[in-house]
C-alpha cells in the first residue's frame, strides 16, 4: 500500500489512537497501529483488547490500497518530528517506508494476521448526543471515578439513558458526581459502566462541539461512532452502587457561593495540609465561613469568606482535593452546598444538571 498523508492530521490520528495502547504490553502486535488503506481513505486502528479505536484520516491521497502493522511509538515519533506538511507511507511485505522531503525510514512491521478487529455497531438502536455536551459530561464525572482497580464496579462511569436524557454517574466510594444532559434522540434505556480508560479516550475524540455522536450498547460492549472515529469497548462488569440511595434528599441547610471564590478559598486553606492531614474544616456561622486546614507537620492555614448564612452554626470537614476537583470542572459561576448537620455528607450543585456528593472527614 502507499499513501501521501497530511502530517498534521496523521499526527492527530496517531496521538488519539495510541492512547488506546497499553504501554509495554507483552504482545508485540498490540504495540502497533494497524494502518488500513482503501480506495476511499486511510484508517488507523489500535486496541488493547478491552478498547479498540478506528480513526479515519482525511486528507490522504491513496496511491495503492493495502494494510500493515506499524509500531505505534516509533511511527508517532517519526511523524511528530517530520518538518514537512505531507509525508509518504508505503507498506510492503515485511517493512514499511516513511519518506519526507529529507528523510527516509524503513521500519520492520509485524504480521497483520491475528490483529484483533475493532467491532462495529451491529444494530440500529442507539443514542445521539452532541459532542460538546458529551465532553462536558465526561469532564464533570470522570475525575470522581476510582483511579485504581478495586473490587467494586466503580472503576468506570455509569451511563444511564432515560428518555431524552442521559445521566452519568461516577464514584470512588468517597464522593460521587452525577451529571445530566439532553440527547438529540434516545433509543435505549440500558445502563452500562464504561471503563475510565475508554472515557478518556473518548474525551480526546470530542473536538467539534456540534458534531453528532452515536452511542450503542450491545452484548457487554459500548460502540461509539463519530464522523471520523469509531470506539468499541468492553464494559465494566458488575453492579454499580445504588447511587440514588446515597444522595441525601433531606439537607435543609443551603449555602450559595461564587464558584471561583470558593475555589480560591479552598485552595488557600489547603496550602498547609498534607496528604495525611485531617482535611479542611468548614465552620459556618452567621454570614461567615471560616476554612481551616492544618497538619501537624506543617502548621495551620485559615481563610475567611463572607457568605449569606442564617442557619445554626455548623461545622464539617472535607478532603480538600475532593472539593477542589469538582470546583475546577463545574463551569458555572454559582455553586451551592447543601448540608444537614455537623459531619454529614455535603451536596454540591451547579446549574440543574450537576450534583456532587462528598462524604465528610471527621476525627475518630
Amino acid at each position, binding site marked *: 500500500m502507499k499513501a501521501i498523508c497530511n502530517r498534521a492530521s496523521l499526527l492527530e490520528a496517531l496521538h488519539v489512537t495510541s492512547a488506546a495502547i497499553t504501554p509495554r504490553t507483552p504482545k508485540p502486535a498490540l504495540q502497533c497501529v494497524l494502518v488500513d488503506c482503501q480506495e476511499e481513505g486511510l484508517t488507523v486502528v489500535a486496541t488493547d*483488547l478491552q478498547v479498540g479505536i478506528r480513526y479515519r484520516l482525511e486528507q490522504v491521497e491513496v496511491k495503492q490500497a493495502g494494510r500493515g502493522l506499524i509500531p505505534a511509538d516509533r511511527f508517532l515519533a517519526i511523524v511528530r518530528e517530520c518538518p514537512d506538511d505531507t509525508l509518504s507511507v508505503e507498506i510492503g511485505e515485511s517493512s514499511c517506508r516513511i519518506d519526507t522531503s529529507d528523510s527516509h525510514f524503513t521500519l520492520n512491521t509485524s504480521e497483520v494476521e491475528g490483529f484483533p478487529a475493532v467491532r462495529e455497531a451491529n444494530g440500529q438502536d442507539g443514542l445521539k448526543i452532541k459532542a460538546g455536551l458529551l465532553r462536558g459530561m465526561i469532564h464533570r464525572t470522570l475525575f470522581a471515578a476510582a483511579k485504581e482497580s478495586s*473490587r467494586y464496579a466503580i472503576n468506570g462511569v455509569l451511563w444511564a439513558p432515560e428518555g431524552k436524557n442521559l445521566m452519568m454517574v461516577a464514584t470512588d466510594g468517597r464522593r460521587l458526581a452525577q451529571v445530566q444532559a439532553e440527547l438529540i434522540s434516545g433509543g435505549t434505556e440500558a445502563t452500562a459502566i464504561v471503563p475510565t480508560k475508554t472515557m478518556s479516550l473518548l474525551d480526546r475524540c470530542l473536538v467539534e462541539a456540534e458534531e453528532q455522536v452515536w452511542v450503542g450498547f450491545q452484548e457487554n460492549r459500548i460502540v461509539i461512532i463519530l464522523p471520523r472515529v469509531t470506539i468499541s469497548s468492553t464494559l465494566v462488569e458488575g453492579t454499580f*452502587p445504588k447511587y440514588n440511595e446515597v444522595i441525601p434528599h433531606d439537607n435543609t441547610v443551603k449555602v450559595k457561593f461564587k464558584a471561583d471564590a470558593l475555589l480560591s478559598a479552598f485552595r488557600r486553606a489547603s496550602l498547609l495540609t498534607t496528604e495525611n492531614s485531617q482535611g479542611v474544616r468548614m465552620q459556618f456561622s452567621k454570614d461567615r465561613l471560616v476554612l481551616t486546614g492544618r497538619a501537624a507537620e506543617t502548621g495551620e492555614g485559615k481563610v475567611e469568606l463572607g457568605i449569606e448564612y442564617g442557619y445554626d452554626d455548623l461545622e464539617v470537614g472535607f478532603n480538600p482535593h475532593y472539593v477542589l476537583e469538582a470546583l475546577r470542572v463545574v463551569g458555572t459561576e454559582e455553586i451551592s452546598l447543601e448540608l444537614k448537620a455537623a459531619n454529614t455528607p455535603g451536596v454540591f450543585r451547579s446549574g440543574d444538571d450537576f450534583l456532587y456528593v462528598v462524604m465528610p472527614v471527621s476525627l475518630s
Partner: protein
Amino acid sequence: MGQIQILPELLVNKIAAGEVVERPASVVKELLENAIDAGAGRIDVAVEDGGKRLIQVTDDGAGMGREDIALAWTAHATSKLSNAEDLLAIKTMGFRGEALASIASVSRVRIVSRTVDNEAGYEVSCEGGDSHEPRPTAAAVGTSVWVRDLFFNVPARRKFLKGTSTETSHVCEQLTRVALAQSQVHFTLSHNGRKNLDLPAASNLRERITGLFGDELAQTLIEADSDERRIRIQALLAPPDMSRTSSKWQYFFLNGRYIRDRFIQHAVREAYRGLIEANRFPVAFLYLQMAPEMVDVNVHPTKIEVRFRDSNAVHSQVLGTLRERFLKSDLSSRMRIEQGEGGQADGEKTEQIRRAVADFLKASPPSQAPLAFGPGSGGYSRSRHNKGPTGQELREELNKLFEADRQGSSSTTQSERLEAQAEPTIRATAAGAVLQLHRMYLVAETDDGLIIVDQHALHERILYEQLSQRVGRGQVASQQLLVPMPVELTNQQRAMLDKVQEILSQVGIELVDFGPTAVAVQAFPAMLDRADPGAAVQDIVDRLVEMPTDSAAEQVLEEVLASMACKAAVKAGDKLSEEEMSQLLADAEFAERSSNCPHGRPTILKMSLAELEKQFKRT
C-alpha cells in the same frame, strides 16, 4: 459397618502413635471423620463454650450395634482395618482405632447409636476412662456423641485452652475443612444454642465454597482439571487480585481428606509466580485423587500430612495443570491489565531482584555488608528462577556479583561502601532532581553525596509513623464512605474481629454488621485515600488471625498499622511523578525511624562525596 476387632500387636506398632487430642477442634475433627466413615448424609455439630464445655456430633450414618459400641473406646479397636496389608490401601478417614479411646480418656463421653437392623439403640458413657456396659435406649438410626468437659482430669491441658472465641474459630476451621472435602454432606454448626452455619448438601464444589466463603469469592474462581499418571486433580483457583497475606486460604485435599503439603503449596506458588507479589498467597482449592497405595497417610498423628510415593510427579502435575489453565484463560489478559504497565516478565525480574536485595540486606547487617558500587550488575542469571532459587542461593549469587566488583577495584577500605545510615540527612539540594530507577528506587543528590531510596519501604515507614503518631494523639481523621464496603469473613475471622473493634475504631476504621458472614466498612482513615477500604480491611483480618491469640493490644495495633501502611504505600513498580518523589523525600525528614521500614529493612542508602571520590580515584 463391620465388626470391631482388636488389632494384632504387630500392627499396633506399625501405627504411629501420637497426640490426637489437642483442643476441642481436634475432637470435632475426629468425630466428623467417624461420621463421614459411617456414611452420614447429614452431620450436626453443636458446641458450647468453644467446645470446652460440650461438643455434640450427630450423624445419620450406619450406626453401631451392641458389640461395636462396647468396644468403641478400646484403644486400637477399629472396624476399618484388620491387618497390615490394609494399612497400605486406606480408603477411610480413620483407621487407627485411637481417636475415641484418646478422647474418652480425657473427657466425659456419651455415645448413643443405632443401626438400621436394630429396633432400639444402645448407649454407653465413659468418664475419664471408666465405662459401663451398653444400655438399650430409644434412638434414631445413626450416632450421637457427646463430649463434655474436655481435659477435666488433666488440669494442665485444660488451662492451656484458649478463650471461647479462639476455640470456636478453630472448631469452625476444622468444620470448614471437612465440609470442603465432603461437599455432598449436609453440615450444621451451632454454638451455645445458636445456629452459626447451615450447609445443605451441595451438588458441586463451587456451591459449597459459596456457602462457606460467600458469593464474591466463589464467583471469581476458575476451574482446572487433569487426570494423568493416575493422579486426578480438580482445582478451583481465585484470580491473582484476590490473593491474601497468608496461605490459610489454600485448601488442599487428598482423597477426601484435608492435608497440608509443601510440595503442592510450592507448585501453586510457582504457578502464580509473576502474577502476584512475592509476599502474597493465592486463594486456591485443590482436590487430588489417587489410588491409596500411591500415598502413605500414616505419617502424622492427625493425618494432616501425608507422604507421596512420588512427590515430584504430584508437584509437576499440579504445576502443569494450573499453568496450562492460566495460559488458555482470559485470566491472563486480566492479569496483564491489572499488572499495569510492567509486563509479566519485567515484574518477575524486578521482584526477583528486589527479593534478592532484601534478603541480602536482611542476612547481613548493613555495617558489615560492603555494597561496593560497581559497573554492570547484569550478570544475573535469569534461567535460575524457574527452579525457584532459595534465598540462600540468591544471596550467594549476589555475593558473587559483589565479590567480583570488589576485586575489580584495587582496595576495599571501610569507607568504600554504601551504607544504611542510622540518621540519614536527605535534604535534596536545590539542583538535586530526583531520579526514579526501575520504578523501585529513587536516587537523589544530598548536600554531601547521594542517597538511594527504596520507594515502597520508605513510604511504608512514613505512613506507619504518621499513623501511629496520630493514633497516639487521638487525631486520626476518618473518611466516611458513600456506600459501606462489604468484607466477607470466615467464622474464625468474624470471631476475631469482635475482639479488635475497639482498636480498629482508634485508627479510623468503622465497621458495621453486614449479614452473618460479612461486615461492612463504613469509615476509613482519610490519609489512606488511595487504598481500597474493603481490600485493606480484608488484609488486616487475614493478618490478625495469624497472630497468637493472646497478643497484647499494642501488638494488634502495630499489626493493623503495618497492614494499612503497606496497603497504602506506593508499590515497587509504581511510576512516581517528580512531585510525588520530592514529597516522599521531604516527608522522610519528618518521620521518625525513616531509615528502616516497619519490617526492619533499610529504606535509604547513602553514599558520600568522599566515598565517590575514592571510588573514582580522584583523591
